């Protein structure tokens, strides 16, 4: 019997406003800032303090709603979500409930089977809680984060695999970055996921009890948590059991979900309209002006990259998956006379490999796009070989400098002088008699190995085409 998963995601994204959602306190990096320095009567829930709406947060939320193709409601209502927890100073969170800011959007994601549309149920505004930490049998509360504007984006249960969930999450993160509403710094917790997972017999239209996995704070954890949960539920059903509706935590180290609350202990949040805030009424002209100022979004940029740069769809999507990467590519391509495809191969290949090796991200790169372009053009112009260029790129990324200068200093300029190459070819053939023998016996794939040996002997300076010709000639001579 086969089972299929039904997955829905709730994404919480902090909004990049200067001040908090309902007070004038500054929004700060909650990891580096000193605890409880950016607080006031409102965000610590002092008796009598009142919330006032942050216009900028609403603007950013509308931007996201529009980018996701949602209907933006002319009137929406803030509601109180009531529950007790020390990080929630008022005893309720101001959120939106039955009349959210935006509904009915969509996001296109790339799956193995092609492009898939994921329906978005709602986008609403709420406030973040404080942060708890525990040490020496004490618990500490930091309210710096309390009241930071949060956007909650909820999908319909239209995702069907951990990979789809991951693809959706990363596409959404890209959009938030494009819109400049969220930094995308996952490790700082500015985007957090909750997944609702159920499984059913493939082809069935039955809806089984779902579990909600909380605390998924990276793409990896998101995929792992869902993966584990699908397996767990499938196993229960296949031995005739029943999955209980419950709220789960996720232990990233163990890669396992664990039960937090059963259905019986589920919170009754007792939502009701927030009496301290009047209904949020949005002016149609204002929404329109936000719409006209929306930046180019990933899908549009992908299309443009395909048509303007003649890239394949998957190459274009790779570049547009990250706004900074897309910008970098465009600037290198603009400075380079080489084909855009070549620029893409350098960025997607050697450039990314260097970043991954050093654990850096695109934001850390100091190499000027113009210098990178110059290097790529030196290869195109056959001034240096590909291998030599890789060495120069690593040097440029690590220590900076001028590409031409590095080529000169390291003596990496490519040489097509036949006598110089011939000398190296003769030495390589003389030094490797057994490989020569194998080649002559019919193992012609060894030719590429010989090219590599010559490249090594010449420190990458030998033109590979000239080398290949000289090698073939030398080997054939030895056949006689």
């Amino acid at each position: 019997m086969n089972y299929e998963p039904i997955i829905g995601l709730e994404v919480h994204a902090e909004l990049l406003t200067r001040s908090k959602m309902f007070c004038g306190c500054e929004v700060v990096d909650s990891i580096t800032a000193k605890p409880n320095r950016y607080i006031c009567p409102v965000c610590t829930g002092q008796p009598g303090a009142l919330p006032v709406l942050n216009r900028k947060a609403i603007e950013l939320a509308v931007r996201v709603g529009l980018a996701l193709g949602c209907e933006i409601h002319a009137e929406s209502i803030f509601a109180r979500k009531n529950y007790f927890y020390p990080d929630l100073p008022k005893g309720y969170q101001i959120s939106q409930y039955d009349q959210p800011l935006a509904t009915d959007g969509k996001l296109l994601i790339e799956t193995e089977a092609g492009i898939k549309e994921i329906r978005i149920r709602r986008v609403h505004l709420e406030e973040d809680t404080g942060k708890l930490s525990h040490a020496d049998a004490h618990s500490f509360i930091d309210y710096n984060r309390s009241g930071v504007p949060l956007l909650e984006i909820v999908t319909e249960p239209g995702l069907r695999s951990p990979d789809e969930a991951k693809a959706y999450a990363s596409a959404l993160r890209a959009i938030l970055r494009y819109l400049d509403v969220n930094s995308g710094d996952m490790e700082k917790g500015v985007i957090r996921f909750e997944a609702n997972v159920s499984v059913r017999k493939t082809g069935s239209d039955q809806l089984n009890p779902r579990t909600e996995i909380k605390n998924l704070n990276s793409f990896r954890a998101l995929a792992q948590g869902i993966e584990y949960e699908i397996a767990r539920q499938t196993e229960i059903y296949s031995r005739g059991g029943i999955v209980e509706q419950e709220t789960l935590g996720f232990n990233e180290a163990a890669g396992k979900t664990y039960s937090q609350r059963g259905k019986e202990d589920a919170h009754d949040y007792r939502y009701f309209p927030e009496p301290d805030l009047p209904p949020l009424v949005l002016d149609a002209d204002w929404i329109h002006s936000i719409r006209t100022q929306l930046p180019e979004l990933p899908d549009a940029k992908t299309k443009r990259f395909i048509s303007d740069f003649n890239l394949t769809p998957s190459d274009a999507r790779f570049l547009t998956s990250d706004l900074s990467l897309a910008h970098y590519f465009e600037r290198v391509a603009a400075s380079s006379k080489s084909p855009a495809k070549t620029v893409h191969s350098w960025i997607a290949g050697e450039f990314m490999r260097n970043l991954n090796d050093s654990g850096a991200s695109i934001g850390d790169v100091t190499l000027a796009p113009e210098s990178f372009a110059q290097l790529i053009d030196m290869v195109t112009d056959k001034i240096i070989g590909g291998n030599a260029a890789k060495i120069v790129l690593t040097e440029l990324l690590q220590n900076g400098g001028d590409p031409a200068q590095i080529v000169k200093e390291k003596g990496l300029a490519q040489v097509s002088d036949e006598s110089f190459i011939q000398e190296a070819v003769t030495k390589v053939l003389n030094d490797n008699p057994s490989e020569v023998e194998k080649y002559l016996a019919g193992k012609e794939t060894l030719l590429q190995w010989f090219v590599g040996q010559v490249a090594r002997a010449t420190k990458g300076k030998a033109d590979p085409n000239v080398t290949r010709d000289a090698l073939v000639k030398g080997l054939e001579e030895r056949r006689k």
Partner: protein
Amino acid sequence: MKLHELSLQETHEQLSSRKISSAELTRAYLERVQRIDPQVKSYVTVSEDLALEQARQADERIKSGDGLTTLTGIPYSAKDSLSTRGVNTTCSSKILENYKPFYDSTAITNLNLAGSVLLGKNNMDEFGMGSSTENSGFFTTRNPWNFDRVPGGSSGGSAAAVAAGLAPFALGEDTGGSVRMPASFCGVTGLKTTYGRVSRYGLIPLVSSFDTIGPMARSAYDVSLVLEAIAGHDPKDGTSRVESVQNYSESLKKAENLRGLRIGIPKEYFVEGLDKEVDASVRAAIKQIESLGAEVMEVSLPHTQYAIPVYYLILFAEASSNLAKYDGVRFGLSERTTGDLMDVYLKTRETGFGAETKRRIMLGTFALSAGYYDAYYLKAQKVRALIRQDFQKAFETCDALITPVAPTTAFRIGEKISNPLDMYLSDVFVVAINLAGIPALSVPCGFSNGLPIGMQVMGPHLSEETLLRIGHLYQSQTDWHTKHPPCW
């Protein structure tokens, strides 16, 4: 000349002509509080040091003549639900017994700017939940006219302080009659302002959508002077009204008669259960107002009978949420001796809250629970809309409505405390006004067995000027508001 017998205007004249100093005046009031309040028990906190310091600053201001207002140097007291920086603000609850806010509510800030002098904080029913101050976590305030009687509630301490000459004016707060009812019981003039006219910032909420801050004083004219100082838009309160504040006192000075004014008498407010003498006094007051030129007509507010259940349902719901923050984590009482987090919550709230408060939290939590929300909270909001419509319709044909404030005069201490429903019903004439968010003035209009009777004058949103004009002209022809209790 006894300083506490002066009206606000007279006091202002004495101060600005420097015949008396604010320090002198403040000391006179503090001395009265020390002497008389042990019997009345209208104050939970007397902020003597602050008062003397504020009086000193006021005297300097008067001396320099810069930025003088009518209220500069004049003492006052405030209901203990108004946050006062550095001064205990308890809402008469044990859960906030030693709580000192680190900020001032906007109404207090406005009086600070005017140069007024805070004498202290007045007793109330815990978090405003009650009609007698018997639900105070500390003690019951006595009615200055008869110490066996309640002063009304929940702003009972403020009303008693003004009536007993322990403050020339006080700030009260009205959620469902909490300014008007004690004003009526104690024989002072009290204004329930239009919702949003006075900023709620710093007012510890009972019901966020009903709460209003309003002045309590010895005359409508005095009330107008205080209202001018505290009213206005506040960017810190998203529900505050943006309309500019009228010069009420100036308008009262010019008022000569009530010609052209149409006064409605809602028949649903003159029904069985209304004390005969209260009925007679209010009707006599209406006649008096008619003689001032107003046209009087009967009107109907057909949904009046639903006001009490609707009011209490919404109150329970909002209060249960507003009181959630008293969890022993950040301020106020915290029972941390044993156990885990849940124990801290349970013990703190069990020890800190009084019986009535607990009752209302439980009822409200129930009314908001999944499966009950539609039947209770939502339905109450729908009926609230109908009650609001009643008033809108009535105000199509009249400019103001007049009713009694309460069905009886002040009841005995202990008389209703064991029967919550009986206590709730004493609010029958006042709560609909909060459901509609409109203003209403309580004006003394007679006595029964030595206890004051009040009439309620209400009008459409932001009609404070009309209500004060009616009260002022009525008081210019009557002397009920000038009578004083024995302890005066």
